């Protein structure tokens, strides 16, 4: 092998990569948080609502989970202007990722709903809790605890795999930024080596953040390493 790595150029453009990483981080967090809200809502509907609503949720979940995220985002990117909506690339990506995450999180959270013991729900009901209060005080804490690993894994999937789709619609998140920069000076290997390391650091930070959040809010005994 006689390729000579030259990291100097990467270093010169490091601030731009950092900007990309920051955007990736924000996109990942917002898409996951938004997806979690959608998922929680849909899982509640799946558990308690009459069948037409359940059917609606099923349709959404089946449609999203059986098509690639890229296609969904292209749909928003190319489709929305046709109906007169001009959204930025970032907005298309974020909405697409959020809707995508929402469908998967519906499935993950639904499993959590099913694992709540009926007696716990009944204890809440007899204390006079409304449906929303049962979800908030009994089901969500239970889910956070029992399926925390599944949630944490999925967060990383959104953060790393989901956001990098942005590169294909011209969003300058970490992967997009790396492609932009390396097309200028052809230092592909250098850029992608550094970017890979940055993704690792990013997921690391995200995992710690999530574990701390879980511990603080739900007393999840999450292992950080």
């Amino acid at each position, binding site marked *: 092998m006689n390729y000579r790595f030259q990291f100097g150029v990467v270093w010169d453009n490091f601030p731009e990569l950092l900007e990309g990483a920051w955007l990736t981080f924000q996109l990942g967090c917002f898409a996951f948080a938004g997806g979690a809200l959608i998922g929680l809502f849909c899982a509640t509907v799946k558990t308690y609502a009459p069948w037409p609503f359940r059917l609606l949720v099923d349709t959404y979940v089946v449609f999203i989970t059986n098509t690639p995220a890229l296609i969904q985002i292209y749909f928003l990117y190319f489709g929305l202007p046709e109906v007169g909506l001009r959204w930025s690339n970032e907005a298309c990506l974020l909405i697409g990722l959020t809707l995508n995450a929402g469908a998967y999180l519906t499935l993950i959270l639904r499993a959590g709903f099913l694992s709540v*013991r009926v*007696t*716990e729900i*009944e*204890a809440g*009901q*007899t*204390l*006079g*809790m*409304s449906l929303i*209060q049962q979800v908030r*005080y*009994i089901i969500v*804490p*239970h889910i*956070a*605890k029992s399926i925390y690993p599944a949630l944490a894994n999925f967060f990383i999937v959104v953060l790393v795999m989901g956001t990098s789709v942005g590169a294909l619609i011209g969003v300058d998140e970490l992967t997009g930024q790396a492609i932009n920069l390396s097309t200028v000076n052809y230092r592909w290997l250098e850029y992608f080596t550094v970017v890979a390391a940055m993704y690792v650091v990013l997921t690391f930070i995200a995992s710690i953040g999530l574990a701390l959040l879980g511990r603080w*809010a*739900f*007393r999840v005994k999450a292992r950080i390493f």
Partner: protein
Amino acid sequence: MPHLAVSDVRAKYGALEVLKGISFEIQKGEIAALVGPSGSGKSTVLRALMGLTPITGGAVEIAGEAMNYSSAREVRAARDRMAIVFQQYNLFQNMTVMQNLTLAPLKIKKWDKAEVTSEARRLLGLVGLSDKADAYSDQLSGGQQQRVALARALALKPQILLLDEVTSALDPELVNEVLDAIRKLADEGMTMVIVSHEMAFVREVADKVVFMDNGQIIEAGTPAAIFDEPKTDRARDFFSKILRH
């Protein structure tokens, strides 16, 4: 006027009628104990009173007021007046003992915070757990958790407390601490309907024993009358089996 009057209450699970006309009443401050073989419908009576199992016939009155379980609002009215503690303690896992006690009074009833907190402290004292206010449920023994569940039910100031085999999931050495807490409630004049297999305890605290079998009341009376001189063969059979050992 009886504090709780249950008359001809019926309930079904699907096509199976599990309560076939249950009638009994208790005065304020009295304790009724429901006893009988497994599957006789004891839990269902308590669940029906709390609106967890729908009532298909009959009537329930609390302090002269008719309870009607036909709408969510009416069910809530029943739940305002009664509280239940189950065999499994079902504490909120991610909350401290104190938060478990104060959640419903503060967030659901919207009562005054200072009053709720001081009442919660009093109740923790009553069940002997003053030092555990800040503990989480997984840091407590089963008996302690069940006593917290008892205090949590009382924090809503129910007029009637329903207890469904609250000691049967506990290790034997933890049973007494829970029974002691119930004794104290009895001394405070709490009106209670309890389901229990602890016959010695029932004999000690109950004013009235209701013997059920197959969804019906077979015999009811004072503990002495029911335990020592049962009039029916079924009751005699049942007590001779379980009082032997």
